[in-house]
């Protein structure tokens, strides 16, 4: 594709590559889902069709490396990148172990140039990489698994009737914090390991829970996926050109596919559509009310930030719930202020959620316009050592026994 001059042949090669990549993803990830829905459709039409269970095992991280290889193909096709002539370099790009199973999704144009010379981390890069790894493990093992997973699991696995609204909200907020700490923890570890090996990976999170608005949220959450969707789907669809109706369609369509990327289930589609709706409403509000002053003030931004976080958390209901009945039941409990419903969370877990969430939101607000690197650079050395030692000791005290990363399933 890189050397072929004939446009027809280039298109054919592109189609072949896309078909192979998306075909594998479609078979492994969406095969059972499509079959289930086909059977349902047959039943709706009165046709008693039953399919044998295909028992497809989902290869770990397939969504991540498929998107990496797709980005390479598209970059080469659109002549944004030169074809890679070394199979070893390309194989390393696709299978680079630190980020293989859960991202960040790395672009070929970012990674392959780093393969041109042997990589060797400087001693400071190595030390900073170790700090990143400790931070990532702390987020995952101590915060996500140790302090947040139990209240979130309790609330989302409750089947027998309503939940007292305080417990429902704390369980939901626990999941909001858990999924950030779990996923950002993996990305932080991956960036740290890569840095120790002398490679640079892109940021995947930038204080997302301090986002003011949903387009801001998606500039900060799972950045490598949202920028991929923007660059390879949203913009080719027309992006912000071609008038408001088209923009709104592009936003909804992109987020729908973004939701489906996370998993073969209608609950993920609902999550994507909810985020698409948020973006559509935000776009219309920005278009129709461009000069409201109060939203630019610190207080206004703070209120909007909290509002954004609340709506993002509400969308997580569909992301985390096993099915729609569970999601609707939890939604009902969240807004049932009559005082009815089961009190499911022990005081200690409620306190854990409040403390971790307060710390998390505060740190996100503090790092709202600042990179972590700059914040650490401004710290005195003894403070860096204290924080590092605390994280390491907390990890040792947890004694393992944690869960797999949530994003491994995608």
């Amino acid at each position, binding site marked *: 594709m890189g050397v072929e001059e004939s446009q027809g042949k280039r298109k054919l090669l592109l189609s072949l590559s896309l078909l192979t990549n998306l075909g594998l993803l479609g078979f492994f990830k969406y095969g059972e889902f499509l079959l289930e829905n086909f059977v349902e459709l047959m039943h709706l039409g009165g046709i008693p069709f039953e399919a044998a269970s295909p028992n497809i095992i989902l290869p770990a991280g397939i969504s991540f490396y498929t998107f990496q290889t797709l980005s390479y193909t598209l*970059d080469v096709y*659109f002549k*944004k990148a030169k074809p890679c002539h070394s199979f070893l370099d390309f194989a390393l790009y696709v299978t680079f172990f630190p980020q293989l199973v859960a991202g960040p999704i790395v672009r070929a144009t*970012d990674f392959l140039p780093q393969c041109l010379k042997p990589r060797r981390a*400087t*001693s*400071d*890069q*190595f*030390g*900073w990489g*170790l*700090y990143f790894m400790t931070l990532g493990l702390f987020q995952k093992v*101590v915060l996500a698994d*140790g302090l947040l997973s139990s209240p979130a699991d309790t609330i989302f696995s409750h089947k027998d009737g309503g939940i*007292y609204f305080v417990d429902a909200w704390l369980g939901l907020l626990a999941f909001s914090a858990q999924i950030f700490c779990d996923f950002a923890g993996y990305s932080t570890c991956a*960036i740290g390991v890569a840095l120790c090996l002398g490679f*640079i*990976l*892109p940021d995947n999170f930038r204080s997302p829970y301090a986002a003011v608005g*949903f*387009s801001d949220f998606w*500039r900060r959450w799972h*950045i490598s996926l*949202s920028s991929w969707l*923007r*660059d390879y789907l949203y*913009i*080719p669809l027309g*992006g*912000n*050109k071609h008038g408001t109706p088209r923009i709104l369609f592009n*936003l909804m369509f992109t987020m729908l596919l*973004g939701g489906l990327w996370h998993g073969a289930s209608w609950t993920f589609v609902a999550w994507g559509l909810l*985020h*698409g709706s948020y973006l559509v409403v935000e776009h219309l509000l920005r278009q129709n009310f461009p000069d409201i002053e109060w939203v630019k003030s610190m207080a206004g931004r703070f209120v909007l930030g909290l509002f954004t976080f609340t709506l993002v958390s509400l969308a997580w209901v569909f992301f985390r719930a096993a099915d729609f009945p569970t999601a609707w039941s939890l939604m009902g409990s969240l807004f049932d202020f009559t005082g009815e419903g*089961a*009190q*499911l*969370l*022990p*005081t*200690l877990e409620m*306190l*854990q959620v409040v403390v971790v969430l307060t710390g998390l939101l505060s740190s996100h607000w503090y790092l709202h316009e600042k*990179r972590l*690197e700059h914040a*650490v*650079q401004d710290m005195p*050395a003894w403070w*860096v*050592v204290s924080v*590092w030692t605390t994280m*390491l*000791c907390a990890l*040792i*005290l*947890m*004694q*393992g026994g944690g869960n797999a990363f949530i994003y491994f399933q995608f």
Partner: protein
Amino acid sequence: MPSSTSSFKTYELKRIVPKHHWVLLALLTVVFAAALTLGWELYCRYLGYAPSLNDTEDLWASRRTLIDEDPNRTVVIGSSRALFDFNMDVYEKAMGERPLQLATVGTNPGLYLQDLADHAEYSGTVIVGVVPSLFFAPGGPPVKSPENHLKRYREWSPTQRVGHFLGMILEQRLAFINQEDLPLKQLLLKLKLPEREKFKAHPELPPYFYEVDEERQGGMTDKAENDIALQERIQQIWLPLFKPPPSPEGKTQEQVDADRDKAVNEILEKTKSRVDKIRNRGGKVIFLRLPSTSELRDIENKYTPRADYWDRILQITAAPGIHFEDYAELSGFDCPEWSHLSKQDATEFTRRLMPLLQKLRKAGEM
């Protein structure tokens, strides 16, 4: 989805290293963390903890795999009494083969029996420890526990195996690695914060009071055998655990009794079919009722009377069984916390059990 009209890679790839002497900071962190960990280790030892293996699903899986290598081995299943009170050295000396210990604490052993019944080649002897309130538990933690252990065995990944063997090296050397009492989550529980009135707390589980070795030979810790205050605390924890849960709202006592009888009958039927399956392949099954004492024994007699539970197991399965109260030599042991024997008594109890098992062997029943 960020709004943009520009195309292709609109972010910047760079990674700044904050200006600190990172190697020095890393070394200082390691030194401080090591010093604090050492201090914690010494404090834990001062509190009476000693290095011991965690009784994990991985350790259980490592033993379960041995059945696949030798499907004729004698296997012990059941709950904590079978784990603590059955001494494998004594059994080996008397019976000439080393059994596999697969009993797990707080467990309904039904699923373990099912696992052996479903094993295409298993034809050994299964010794089933029976604690009626657990054996007839229809669900909840007593069933969840064997589900989790079996799942770990069936899906035991190479990473988990390596993690287990590395973990064992540390557990055998460090007292603070103790999953029952000393992980951060357990330490936080010691705050004992007051609960809301309507919150239904799970019953408290006993603190760390037993240990296992690589072969999962279990036994009480020295501290549990000698610390009267700890024994009394565990005794009070057993009492609510051995009583039936309160009736669900909206159900009469008759409905609750009918549900319980139905569940008991179903479990008995399943047990019979599992036992038959093992016997049809040439295997044997023996039920074993191990000692409990004092107030706990009274509660067991009240809520799980022998005639309705133990006797029915033997009657329906037609398998042999040994109840500690049927033999003078097995009675009269003192359980320090009413539910388990001390290590020394467990050895003696097993020694006295052996002639009974040998008799069963002669009769072709094991």
